[in-house]
């Protein structure tokens, strides 16, 4: 192919937007095979990688109608994983189609499934949950859907895999579909306008309904998996459109004398920038325009209102910016603002609070105890916190909240914490960024839990509540 033809083809093929998704399920469900199939059929696997996989497949005596390549090997990155034939850790994979660039977080199912699923789902626009068509909805499926509901993943796709092994039976598929919808109803998944749910019959091994619609499932009229992933709106898109402006300040850009020499050489007006001061950060939700009224939220201050007079990005002046852009914002009034403060659309943030009511996904082998001191990282601020009490533990299989006084690895529970300084906490249900926090061990610095702000304390008289 000549360079010209390639260039012409590339012109129309430039991926325009980014989409992050995760896969949840176990090796037995054929998850690694599905991931391998997506990568392979979208031509994301380059020849040398495929050769290496083919060699290893042959060494292990992997046979089969698909030319003897074990697609699952494409996702096992670490030596221990290859040796033991298991996937230990979340692996990130990249592929692109004409419409989108994809970041795939491949979350292993068996080992520490909660930790891995929570990690993968926290950044995902969509999660694909695998079910083996021969087995239907298992306890693990319920657990996965429960975690996804808790993390408010915008789109959940259930792939009913190995549909070839049940002779492409519509009845089997419809039964599983009904079971999935029943579980989703029990969870409130897909019913509250936050998430949507789609069930797709696939054969990862043969490729049915993975990239292209299959002729062997004529009773299924919906899109193939990749078509779904190409067209769903990304979470950033929803957050930019639906929510109010939120901007945690990362740092203050105030170069004084130390202007960038390359900017000066490029004609930057040194006098005009002598007193430059802007607040740098990434917009987590919503959008902002020059002229907008904003509130500055800092601990120890009432919210202070001012006006945005400039939005800068590396020498460009913008009139408007939206999540998830990284920018620097200039304000009309000289206000003392530091890292950890939040700039938000005026009048849209509730009073900061030092009482934190949260769901915690416990990710550490060290259990959580009542009375324990931890660190909480929320936005760009880290504060000390005291665990006042654990109010319950979620049984992921039944969705019941049961009494508990501690949380262990892979538990999801509810707790009340008292913070050393008030924070502008928001309900995770509507704020996937400003409603999220980390619980950190002050001793070794490790991340102990993923935290989701449940409610504002003003909302609750009763301290025990259910999901």
């Amino acid at each position: 192919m000549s360079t010209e033809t390639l260039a012409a083809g590339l012109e129309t093929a430039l991926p325009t937007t980014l989409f992050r998704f995760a896969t949840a399920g176990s090796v037995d469900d054929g998850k690694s095979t599905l991931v391998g199939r997506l990568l392979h059929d979208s031509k994301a696997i380059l020849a040398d990688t495929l050769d290496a996989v083919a060699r290893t497949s042959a060494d292990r005596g992997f046979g089969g109608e698909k030319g003897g390549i074990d697609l699952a090997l494409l996702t096992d990155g670490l030596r221990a994983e290859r040796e033991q034939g298991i996937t230990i850790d979340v692996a990130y994979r990249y592929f692109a189609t004409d419409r989108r660039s994809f970041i795939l977080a491949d979350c292993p199912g068996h080992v520490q499934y909660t930790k891995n699923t929570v990690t993968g789902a926290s950044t995902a626009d969509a999660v694909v949950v695998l079910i083996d068509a021969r087995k239907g909805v298992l306890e693990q499926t319920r657990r996965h859907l429960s975690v996804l509901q808790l993390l408010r993943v915008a789109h959940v796709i259930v792939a009913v895999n190995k549909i070839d092994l049940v002779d492409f039976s519509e009845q089997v598929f419809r039964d599983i579909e009904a079971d999935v919808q029943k579980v989703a109803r029990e969870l409130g998944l897909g019913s509250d306008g936050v998430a949507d749910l789609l069930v797709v019959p696939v054969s990862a091994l043969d490729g049915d309904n993975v990239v292209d619609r299959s002729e062997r499932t004529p009773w299924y009229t919906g899109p193939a998996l990749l078509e779904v992933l190409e067209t769903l709106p990304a979470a950033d898109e929803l957050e930019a459109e639906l929510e109010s402006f939120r901007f945690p300040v990362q740092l203050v850009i105030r170069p004084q004398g130390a202007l960038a020499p390359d900017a000066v050489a490029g004609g930057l007006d040194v006098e005009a920038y002598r007193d430059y001061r802007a607040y740098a950060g990434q917009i987590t939700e919503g959008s902002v325009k020059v002229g907008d009224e904003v509130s500055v939220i800092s601990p120890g201050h009432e919210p202070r209102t001012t006006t945005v007079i400039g939005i800068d990005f590396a020498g460009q002046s913008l009139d408007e910016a939206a999540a998830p852009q990284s920018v620097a914002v200039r304000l009309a009034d000289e206000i003392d603002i530091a890292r950890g403060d939040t700039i938000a659309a005026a009048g849209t943030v509730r009073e900061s609070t030092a009482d934190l009511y949260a769901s915690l996904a416990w990710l550490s082998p060290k259990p959580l105890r009542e009375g324990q001191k931890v660190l909480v990282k929320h936005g760009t601020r880290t504060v000390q916190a005291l665990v006042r009490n654990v109010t319950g533990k979620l049984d992921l299989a039944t969705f019941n909240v049961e009494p508990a006084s501690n949380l262990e690895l892979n538990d999801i529970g509810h707790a009340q914490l008292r913070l050393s300084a008030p924070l502008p906490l928001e309900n995770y249900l509507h704020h996937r960024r400003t409603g999220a926090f980390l619980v950190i061990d002050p001793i070794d610095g490790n991340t102990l839990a993923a935290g989701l702000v449940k409610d504002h304390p003003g909302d609750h008289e009763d301290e025990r509540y259910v999901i």
Partner: protein
Amino acid sequence: MSTYTTEESTVKVAAAVDAPSVERLSSLDTLESEAIHIIREVVAEFEKPALLFSGGKDSVVMLHLATKAFWPGKVPFPVLHVDTGHNFPEVIDFRDRTVERLGLKLVVGSVQEFIDRGELAERADGTRNPLQTVPLLDAIQKNKFDAVFGGGRRDEDKARAKERILSLRDEFGQWDPRNQRPELWNLYNGRHTVGQHVRAFPISNWTELDIWRYIERENIELPSLYYAHEREVFARDGMWRAVGEVSQPLPNEDVITKLVRYRTVGDMSCTGAVESDARTVADVVVEVAASTLTERGATRADDRISEAAMEDRKKDGYF
């Protein structure tokens, strides 16, 4: 179903008068914003960061992102180069010009000095890439760097695919792949104890093609050897190796002049060139998009040693 814009840059759209609403960011804009967010987090939370700068395209992109993150201020950290002593001269020249242009401090860790002092031994195969770990850790320790930015990408290698954006290293610089902190949302946990440090990989989620499309879009200068040029080469291990002071053909290896370019820039003794007529960045974008080989598989002898070559080096403290 939603429709999508083919607009390459929403910044331009947003800047237009009376723009109705902000368009969906392009994938490059999203990756750029993510990287800048990470760079700013590390600068805000660490005492003394540094950026690994080899003059290779990924580190050049990293430095470009850093200039954007702190504009109109200077990049607020030094750059660190681990010099194998087997460099392509044009890359060292590029490094020095870049440091000068941006007014940065350059810290160099020298493999040669360690060999001269007898603290490192030359390998039988002559490559010095794996020898970089000791001078790297020495420079980190001596300069008390608590965070080191690297241009590592997860699409480069299967071990890298599992590494966190902020990767904690112990006193020996070791990576423990089985004991990594979960990385949740865009909240990065950089806490570390005395003696530990963190490697930060802000462009973890970029692919080789993203890098090249970004270099094209931002008009970023690179060392000339990334573009097609005539060079004296000989074939070894299925790669074209340049003839140079440290890279001499064996008697049975014929030297020929070929039109080549480099896809990665490392130690001259183990980095191979590919045949290419891509003389401009636009040509390279087209070539990379059509390539059927990964950049490391195509051009790095050290990554061909075993299936876990990169994982093993990283466990010992490599980038």
